[in-house]
């Protein structure tokens, strides 16, 4: 065991006592600006973190409303509410909003709030760029949503934007492409900011292997973002030139190849999955130790597992396109490399479980969401392994089984982890404890309805129901009805979440600096008062 490894637990366990906390010495003399100017011009990481989180919640509700349009149409066989073109627009824009507008900005918001607090930095390293990247995102999603009202309707070719279908989009096409470019630029700037902050502004004594897991997972995620967001930007730029400037990157008529787009897209698209899930891993790695009253089991292994997952995410992309046809050696390679991801992921699941082993467990709402993540994300992981098997994937491809799989990974996976993080850190942000009784009701309603919503989609997919189709054979009627009931129940539950957040922001029982006092949470963020002052760590804390 390395020296670093030996010293790590001691350091973190002493943070409450040994850190020369400067947080209380914040600038009382210059607080936030007043009114709307504060939010437009702020360079404060806490303000920007809050704006990202509020933005992602709004997007979550808009994207969720689109999901309910989809599920309402699919409640019964036959065409009920919307025409097929609009249905396809809903599946496309729902996905784009949830991926780029809800999940990613939520993790960026959490990163903005917590990374400087967890590494003892006074702010992000590039605060003005931080402000710019947030407002760029607002512009991007305003454009994307406005594209729904263009002649010909919004983009309807699926979030993957495959040519040649996507090239048939009406006037919404350039708006959607521009929106994606802006969102991508925003993500890249956010990622640069996070890397520069973590590499340059850590408190003295905080070596890389003493960083909290949430910081580690975000550091690796930020590298992934810088590596793959330009790839997606390149792909959509080529779509744009194919559409307007006569190039034929993806048109067979001019010597191009539509399958090339799929390769480029999924070279971005698969790491994108980990961009959404790695910060969730970091959140769960913070919460489970706290409510188990133990240190994280296998900290170093967790770091290396995260890095391994990130590396493997670059060499598995073609498992999304087994059915386009590729050499047998290619199918074998992508099948086996995909299965390999189960190893580091298994290390993580094992370590979270081992952290709880013989721990003094309590089940506050953050822990409940973290545990639900552990069980339900693993279900999504297992169905992912099933799809990795190339010959079997020929049956699953483009069916509702795929829809079930990635929703298990992203909803009770990424979204539950984000909700766990909000409940865990909200008292630090607002200075108030949330209503535990309401939060538990929110948890149980979400956990029950998310399974009612997505589990039957496994059955539908295995029975052969295709995805992205507004009508279906009557044999699929029963499970579709169950799934739609689950969707409306889940949607309703999230209104309770909005109410809990609003109520906590307005008032409630005062939170202490440690918040979870009897659990003695580890980390520098618990050494500053609750709510965290506008300026923290004006002087560097010393991590021994």
């Amino acid at each position, binding site marked *: 065991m390395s020296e670093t490894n030996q010293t790590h637990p001691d350091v973190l366990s002493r943070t409450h006592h040994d850190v020369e906390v400067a947080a209380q010495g914040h600038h009382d003399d210059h607080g936030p600006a007043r009114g709307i100017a504060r939010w437009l011009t702020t360079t404060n990481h806490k303000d920007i973190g809050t704006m990202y989180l509020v933005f992602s919640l709004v997007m979550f509700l808009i994207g969720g409303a689109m999901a309910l349009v989809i599920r309402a149409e699919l409640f019964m066989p036959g065409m009920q509410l919307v025409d097929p073109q609009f249905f396809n627009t809903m599946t496309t824009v729902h996905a784009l909003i949830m991926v780029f507008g809800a999940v990613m900005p939520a993790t960026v918001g959490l990163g903005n709030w917590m990374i400087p607090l967890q590494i003892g930095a006074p702010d992000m*390293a590039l605060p003005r760029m931080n402000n710019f990247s947030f407002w760029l995102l607002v512009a991007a999603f305003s454009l994307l949503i406005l594209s729904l009202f263009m002649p010909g309707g919004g983009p309807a070719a699926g979030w993957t934007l495959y040519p040649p279908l996507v090239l048939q989009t009406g006037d919404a096409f350039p708006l959607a492409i521009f929106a994606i470019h802006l969102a991508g630029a925003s993500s*890249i700037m956010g990622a*640069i900011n996070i890397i520069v902050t973590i590499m340059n502004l850590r408190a003295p004594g905080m070596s890389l292997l003493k960083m909290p897991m949430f910081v580690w997972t975000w550091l690796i995620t930020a590298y992934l973002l810088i590596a793959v967001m*330009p790839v997606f930007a390149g792909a959509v730029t080529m779509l744009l030139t194919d559409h307007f400037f006569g190039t034929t990157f993806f048109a067979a008529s001019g010597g191009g*190849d539509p399958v090339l787009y799929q390769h480029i897209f999924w070279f971005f698209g698969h790491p994108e999955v980990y961009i959404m899930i790695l910060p969730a891993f970091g959140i769960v790695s913070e919460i489970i130790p706290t409510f188990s009253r133990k240190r994280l089991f296998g900290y170093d292994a967790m770091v290396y597992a995260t890095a391994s997952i990130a590396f493997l995410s670059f060499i598995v992309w073609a498992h999304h396109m087994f059915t386009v046809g590729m050499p047998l050696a290619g199918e074998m390679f992508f099948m086996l490399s995909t299965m390999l991801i189960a190893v580091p992921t298994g290390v993580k699941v094992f370590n979270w479980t081992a952290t709880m082993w013989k721990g003094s467990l309590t089940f506050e709402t953050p822990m409940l969401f973290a545990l639900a993540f552990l069980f339900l994300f693993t279900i999504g992981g297992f169905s992912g392994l099933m799809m990795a098997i190339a010959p079997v994937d020929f049956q699953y491809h483009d069916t509702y089984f795929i829809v079930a799989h990635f929703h298990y990974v992203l909803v009770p996976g990424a979204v539950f982890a984000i909700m766990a993080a909000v409940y865990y850190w909200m008292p630090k942000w607002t200075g108030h404890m949330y209503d535990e009784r309401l939060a538990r009701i929110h948890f149980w309603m979400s956990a029950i309805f998310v399974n009612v919503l997505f589990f039957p989609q496994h059955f539908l997919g295995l029975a052969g129901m295709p995805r992205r189709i507004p009508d279906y054979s009557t044999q699929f009627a029963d499970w579709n009805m169950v799934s739609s009931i689950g969707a409306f129940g889940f949607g309703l539950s999230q209104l309770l979440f909005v109410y809990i957040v609003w109520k906590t922001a307005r008032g409630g029982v005062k939170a202490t600096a440690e918040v979870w006092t009897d659990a003695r949470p580890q980390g520098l963020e618990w050494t500053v008062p609750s709510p965290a002052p506008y300026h923290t760590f004006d002087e*560097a804390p010393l991590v021994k």
Partner: protein
Amino acid sequence: MASQGEPGDRQRRRIRRTTVVLVLVALAIYVSFIVSSMLA
């Protein structure tokens, strides 16, 4: 202990260097994927 509020010159240079390198990496990836698609 020195104030963290204002980064020192050395720290400022490191921040600028890291930022420029990362921006160039992102641009290089963007351009290289388009150029290699042209050549494919």
